[in-house]
Each structure stands twice: as structure tokens, then as C-alpha cells.
């Protein structure tokens, strides 16, 4: 028991606590210890436009990526849930393959595929005469964020689809049969049977998808390293580049690692994701309560 407890203490709980301590330090490198400076890092963070811009991009990922993924995945799941569709397992495999692949490597491959010079996507669009000239998917600051988001949605939709399929399979076919026998049309079945059963799952699925839209470091770093001109620097990329001075000339803080300051950004970000998670717990409880009432009303 002890070694297991030590492992989880070291890698789960120690970092949780220490991040907060580090965020109070003026600390540049691993060779030396930092000086305690109180909340100065946080004051700096509040005024740091680059930080807020990065935070805003992550929020954009959630606000755009989540609805697209959830709706697209639901449509695919409904189509694949058709029991007469013999090829459904094969199709499911296809949609799911991007999910299990290494995000960083997918990012590298995609950066080649979307290249404006001889990238296969541009070649294809040009050959089909859809475009007169190549699109600068990743080299134009105005389109890069959307290209990266598109790749992220492509990679993650299969994940959300599996959630929806699991949820759809909880809808008992006997209910649907009974409703049909009673003469209910497709719309009324969807409205009064399928939807109420799916609702609690929908809440969980939306939150899980939103969470994964916040965690895009590997894909973004591998595709664009936050560039061009910071246009794809999401919050995790910002933290990494600030902490380890790994952004080269691109991120403007080359040479000086800022571990304390990056910790402050990390703590802020961690708190935000935690608040979202708590909102989830609250929402699930709320939805379950509503369902419980409905069930009681139905029984009496």
C-alpha cells in the first residue's frame, strides 16, 4: 500500500500543492531556488495581454469546437446506431482511429498535409479547380487558428461519437416499440422518449468534450508551435513556452525561463478547468434530480 500511496502522493497531490507555491516565486531556472515575491506574478498576469490572448484562444476552442464536435458526433452516432447497417462497426473503427493516434505526430503530419507549398490538401483543391491558388492554412495568422481547430475537431469527434453511441444504447428498444404501437410519430418519439433518456448523458458529454478542447498542447505545438505571430498560441502552449523559454524568437521570451510566472498562469488555468468540472458535477446532480422527479411523477 505504501509505495502506491507514495506514487500518487508524489505525482498527483504534490504537484497540485507545489504549483501554487511556485506561482509565488520569482524563479527563472532549475539550477537555483526562487525568491518569494507574494502575488506579484498574478498582478503581472492580469496585465499580460499575451496571456489573455492565449486564454481567449483556448476559450474559442471550447466555444466553437465543443458544439461542432458534439453535434457532428451525435449525427454520426445516430447513423451508426442503425441496426440494419451491417457495416456500422467498420465505419465506427474509421471514425475512431484518429482518436487513438499520437497527437504530436498527427500534428506533424498535418502540418505537411496543410502546407501551402505542395501540401496534398492544396494540391487536391487546385487539381479539382476548387481554388485558384493555394490556401495558407497554417502560415497565415488569420486562418491558422481555424485550421488547427479543424484538425482538433477531426481528431476528437470519434471520441465524442463513442460517448454518444454508449448513451444511445441505453435507450430501451421496448420503449420505442411500445410508443410505435401507441401510434407515436418519429418526432414525438424523439421528443418524449429518446431525448429525455439522452439528456443526462448529453450534459456529461458536453463537459468532457469541452475539457478536451482545453487540452490541445501536443497537437498545436506540433502543428504550429503557437505561430505564426502567436496566432495559435493557446493557453497550454503559452505556459510551456513561458516556463521553458522554448518558444525561440517566435514567442519573444527566448533565453529566460520563467518558472514562477508560468506556474501562476498554470494555476489560473487549472482553477478555471476545475470550476468547469464543478459546474459539471452540479449540472449532473441537477439533471438527475429532474429525472428522479419525472420518474416519481410517472409512477404515481
Amino acid at each position, binding site marked *: 500500500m505504501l509505495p502506491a500511496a507514495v506514487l500518487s502522493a508524489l505525482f498527483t497531490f504534490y504537484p497540485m500543492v507545489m504549483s501554487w507555491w511556485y506561482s509565488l516565486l520569482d524563479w527563472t531556472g*532549475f539550477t537555483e531556488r526562487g525568491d518569494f515575491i507574494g502575488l506579484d506574478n498574478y498582478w503581472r498576469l492580469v496585465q499580460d495581454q499575451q496571456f489573455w490572448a492565449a486564454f481567449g484562444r483556448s476559450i474559442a476552442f471550447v466555444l466553437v469546437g465543443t458544439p461542432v464536435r458534439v453535434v457532428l458526433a451525435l449525427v454520426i452516432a*445516430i*447513423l451508426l446506431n442503425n441496426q440494419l447497417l451491417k457495416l456500422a462497426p467498420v*465505419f465506427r473503427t474509421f471514425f475512431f*482511429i484518429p482518436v487513438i493516434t499520437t497527437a504530436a*505526430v498527427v500534428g506533424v503530419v498535418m502540418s505537411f498535409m496543410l502546407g501551402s507549398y505542395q501540401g496534398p490538401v492544396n494540391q487536391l483543391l487546385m487539381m479539382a479547380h476548387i481554388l485558384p491558388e493555394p490556401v495558407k492554412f497554417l502560415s497565415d495568422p488569420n486562418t491558422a487558428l481555424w485550421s488547427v481547430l479543424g484538425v482538433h475537431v477531426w481528431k476528437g469527434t470519434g471520441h465524442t461519437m463513442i460517448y454518444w453511441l454508449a448513451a444511445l444504447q441505453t435507450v430501451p*428498444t421496448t420503449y*420505442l416499440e411500445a410508443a410505435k404501437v401507441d401510434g407515436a410519430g418519429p418526432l414525438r418519439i424523439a421528443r418524449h422518449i429518446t431525448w429525455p433518456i439522452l439528456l443526462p448523458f448529453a450534459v456529461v458529454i458536453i463537459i468532457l468534450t469541452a475539457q478536451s478542447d482545453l487540452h490541445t498542447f501536443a497537437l498545436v505545438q506540433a502543428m504550429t508551435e503557437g505561430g505564426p505571430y502567436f496566432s495559435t498560441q493557446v493557453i497550454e502552449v503559452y505556459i*510551456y513556452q513561458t516556463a521553458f523559454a522554448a518558444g525561440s524568437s517566435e514567442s519573444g521570451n527566448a533565453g529566460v525561463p520563467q518558472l514562477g510566472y508560468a506556474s501562476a498562469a*498554470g494555476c489560473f488555468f487549472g482553477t478555471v478547468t476545475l470550476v468547469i468540472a464543478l459546474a459539471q458535477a452540479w449540472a449532473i446532480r441537477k439533471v438527475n434530480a429532474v429525472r428522479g422527479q419525472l420518474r416519481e411523477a410517472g409512477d404515481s
Partner: protein
Amino acid sequence: MSLATATPRRVRGARIPRHHWRTTLRVVVLSLILLPICLAWIYPFVWMVSASLKSNKEIFAGLNPFPSVVRLDNYVRAWTQANMGRYFFNTVFITVFSTVISVGSTALIGYVLGRYRFPGKKVVIGLFAAAIFLPEGYTIIPVFDMITMLGLSGSLWGVTLAEAGGAHVVATLLFAGYFGQLPGELEEAARIDGAGFWRIFANVYLPLAKPVIATAIILQVMHSWNSFLLPLVLTLSRPELRTLAVGVYSFRGEYLNDWAGMAAASTITLLPIIIVFLFLQRYFVESIAGALKN
């Protein structure tokens, strides 16, 4: 396609015995629509494999996925010159040992959390649940600092331990939930027979938890094989410890124009996990669907 029109299709599908010709036609049309979409969906991987078998010149020349001559020299170049062979070994090492460590320890912690009452238990479970949502960007600095302090920054064990420690929260909660709902009579009976804590855990309860063990293994293997931020940071000054993900990433930085070599290196990374997935697909899907239900 809107929700309202799509949902009843499942309803019709549920009524299996009578095959209306219109239903059949609909299924055929649906398949014909889905097939090209699916092929386009995995086109990046097809392109990657095909590019890895071509010369650089041929990649630029056209979109035909079939190379004129199958070339394996890209793989040789990636494996030796770009050190993918070494990174492959590193990644296998880290994946195997982090999985052994993490599954063993999550099963234990889950067992204790699920079967024993002790003060502060709810707090511990709450902390675990909260930790699921903590972003890696939030914990990477203390983890890096700790690995250095433990003197492990020069060996693969540093990355291995960090991988094992980082991903185990979901598995712990799954184990705790699973062990918690098993009947307590098993434990009492074993205790009367004179079995101690370890015997009861290893011989009585653990064998019952096979489905959760399978899930925990799959989650950890996916996590370790695909992980990027952690090995990237831990190997910043130690290129010889890189994993495949980090190796491919730095490959692009070093050989920007070698598309064929990059494609070969990427294939070396992705093919194993895709093959494992295809063989264990059912378990993968159940693992992820199971994470939803909890």
C-alpha cells in the same frame, strides 16, 4: 441531416424481422454515403504511409497514393540516422513499465478506497476526482522539478515514473467503484480462513476485477505511448531519452525537407498503436464508454 429525421431510422432498425425494400435501399444509400466520408476521414494516415514509401521527389509530384517503386530506405534512414530505433525502444520501455507500475498501484489504492472506511476518505476521493481535470500544463513544472530532485532526470525511469503517476486518476476511481460494489462476505470468509490483507487483495478481489484491469491497461498504454508534453520537457536536455512522439517532433525541426523520412518516422510511431487498437478494438471502445458511465 437533422436530428429529427435521423432518430426514427434507428427505431425502424429496431423492428428487425420484416425487411421492407425501402428500408434496405435506405441502408444501402447510407452505406454509399458513409464509405467515402470514412475514407476521407483516415486519408491523412493513408497519405502518411504512402509518402513513407516514396521518394521526396515523388511526394511532390502527385497525389497517386501508390508509389511506383516501394522504397524502404526512408525507414532505414529514420530508424538509424534520425534515431527512431532508439526512441522506439525508449517508448516501449516507458509504456511497459509505466503500465505495470500504474495498474498495480491504482488497483491497490482503488481497493483500499473502495473497501475500507477511514477518516478523510471522502476528501481523498474528492481530490482524486478533482485531479482528473487538472491540465498537464498545471503540474508539469513540479513534476519536472521533482524528477530532477530524485536524481532520475538522466534515466528512462524518470519519464516512466512520471507517466505512471500522471494518468492513474481515472483508473483509481474505476477500481474504487468496482471493488466497492463487490460483496464483503468474500473478505470475511477469506479472513476466517486466515488470509491477510495481501492474500485477500491478490487472491480474492483482484482476479474479480479483470474488466477494470483491462480498461486500466488500455488507458495507460494509450496515455504513455501518445504522451508528449511530459517526455518533451523531461528530455529537453537529453535527446537520447526521447520518445517517438518527441522524436518525430524534433525530426521535423532538424530535417525540414525530408518529407519521406518524416512520414516513415510518423508511421513507425502510429502503426503500432493502430494495430494494437484494431486487435483490441472492443476493449478500447468499452474503456472509453465506461469512463463516461462513471
